[in-house]
């Protein structure tokens, strides 16, 4: 077919931009036909992310295990201190005025407790069955009777007895936890106690800020190193996949593919592999690491499992995996697509 008859310059059209659908078609087909090669690339991503995830998970769990019991003990100790002050105050030898004041305040407390119970019962009546209603009404009447002025002494006595009982319970709990701590011993590996002293012992063990601020220097170094290794692994894998297809890219340009189309194809391929690979990597890393920690530390692993820190680790790993896979493929692909076809084809020689 020949336009030689018309004199003057030929009319040159513009190559239309092919839709994403076409790019997706070609990209998915590329992955399918190069299935095993794609699997190798994806396994690089899986491994890199699994490694990253397992380091971060181990660190999170270890940190939580080191901090958790400590935080529990600390909050228990606080409660003991509060109650002890009250008890001491109650047990010391007071002056008549002191006694008067203290009796008055204790009575007020006792009255408040009784009133609270009445309120509770009143609320409960709304949802109660007719049988329960009867019991609750009896309780309320009983409590109201005790609030009568002539029954003050009885009320006070009962209240103080109850508070003493609760204190005994608390003491029991504290002893149990101290016992547990002795049994579990110091966590192996990088313990935070040696390096950083907890600045806020009152914060709950699952909080994200605790994880990041209480990682020891060794842990931080390890986490960063894991990130670097992961980075290099993924970048290397993706660079290679583009490199080995330079000639193909040059050929496609000769067939009329636009630069952007070629980039789109590689974008979709790398995003697909990156997404699936990252997903698997996170799952594998998380699972293996948790199992390992559970085998070493036993059930406290799950008692003190830090959901916040783990979630943060998952999100960060997902971000790293996906973004890195895409960028690591995108840059070389973009460069290859922008070359003149001859350059791209020459490189592979």
């Amino acid at each position, binding site marked *: 077919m020949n336009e030689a008859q018309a004199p003057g310059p030929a009319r040159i059209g513009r190559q239309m931009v092919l839709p994403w659908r076409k790019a997706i078609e070609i990209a998915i087909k590329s992955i399918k036909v190069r299935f095993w090669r794609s699997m190798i690339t994806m396994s690089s991503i899986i491994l890199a992310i699994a490694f990253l995830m397992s380091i971060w998970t181990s660190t999170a769990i270890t940190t939580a295990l080191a901090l958790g019991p400590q935080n529990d003990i600390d909050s228990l100790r606080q409660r003991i201190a509060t109650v002890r002050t009250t008890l001491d105050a109650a047990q010391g030898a007071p002056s008549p005025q002191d006694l008067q004041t203290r009796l008055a305040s204790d009575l007020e407390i006792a009255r408040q407790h009784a009133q609270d119970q009445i309120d509770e019962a009143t609320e409960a009546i709304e949802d109660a069955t007719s049988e329960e209603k009867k019991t609750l009404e009896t309780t309320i009447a009983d409590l109201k009777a005790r609030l009568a002025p002539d029954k003050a002494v009885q009320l006070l006595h009962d209240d103080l007895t109850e508070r003493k009982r609760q204190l005994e319970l608390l003491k029991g709990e504290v002893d149990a936890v101290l016992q547990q701590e002795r049994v579990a011993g110091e966590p192996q590996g990088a313990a935070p106690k040696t390096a950083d002293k907890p600045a806020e012992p009152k914060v709950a063990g699952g909080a994200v800020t605790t994880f990041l601020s209480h990682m020891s220097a060794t842990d931080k170094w390890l986490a960063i190193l894991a990130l670097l290794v992961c980075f290099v692994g993924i970048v290397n894998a993706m660079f290679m996949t583009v490199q080995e297809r330079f000639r*193909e890219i*040059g*050929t496609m340009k000769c*067939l009329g593919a636009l630069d952007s189309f070629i980039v789109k194809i590689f974008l979709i391929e790398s995003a697909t592999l990156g997404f699936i690979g990252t997903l698997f990597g996170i799952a594998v890393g998380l699972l293996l690491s948790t199992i390992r920690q559970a085998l070493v530390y036993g059930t406290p692993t799950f008692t003190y499992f830090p959901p916040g820190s783990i979630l943060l680790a998952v999100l960060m790993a997902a971000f790293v995996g996906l973004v890195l896979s895409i960028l690591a493929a995108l840059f070389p692909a973009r460069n290859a697509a922008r070359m003149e076809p001859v350059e791209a084809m020459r490189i592979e020689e």
Partner: protein
Amino acid sequence: MQQNIVRTRDVTKVYTMGKVEVHALRGVDLEIRAGEYISIMGPSGSGKTTLFNMVGGLDKPTGGKVYIEEVDVAQLDAYELAWLRCRKIGYIFQTFNIIPVMTALENVTLPMVFAGLTTDEARDKGVGLLERVGLGERLSHKPFELSGGQQQRVAVARAMANDPSLILADEPTGNLDIKTGTEIIDLLKQLNKERSVTIISATHDHKMLSASDRIVWIRDGKVDRIEERGDIKIEVGTIEGEE
């Protein structure tokens, strides 16, 4: 009068390799008429491939102008260049360059995809082309299942995919034995006659001589001489000795 399908004016190309400048082309003037079968010949390093890349829109000259159908190639933007490569020009390479993971049919229909044909249209046309080059039985074969000659035929079929006015063949017989090489040259000649498609080939292969209408000899980045086919037949002995 026949139009020039490719015209170059004082084309130069300089490659910079580090500190060294290589003058691959030192001012080439060439006019190629539509419907011709022209061969560019010359020793390695003569600038033959470089000139070939220039006239094919595969590379940009450092100086001078290249006109394809009277359109200055340097003025074209990326979209227009892509259109040109898709619709006007077909390429054949020494290393075949067919995509290894696609079947023969898929390779042939790929340029049609870029040209916007529907899958059915592309398929029908692709089958027709493959049958024309003698590979009607091997539509779903992958490149590794095809011999060198067959791969090159797929490349020829692919080059014809969008009915181009120009086919550029870079050493099409370079990786083929004598018999297969001859077959390819014959195929190109047939297409040249049947479909009036201009064929420009850069080659070492002297079998190409009798098929060509004209031969451009390149030496040291400049045109040494241009010969018509009529001239060659008489001087066959001399040519063999010149290389």
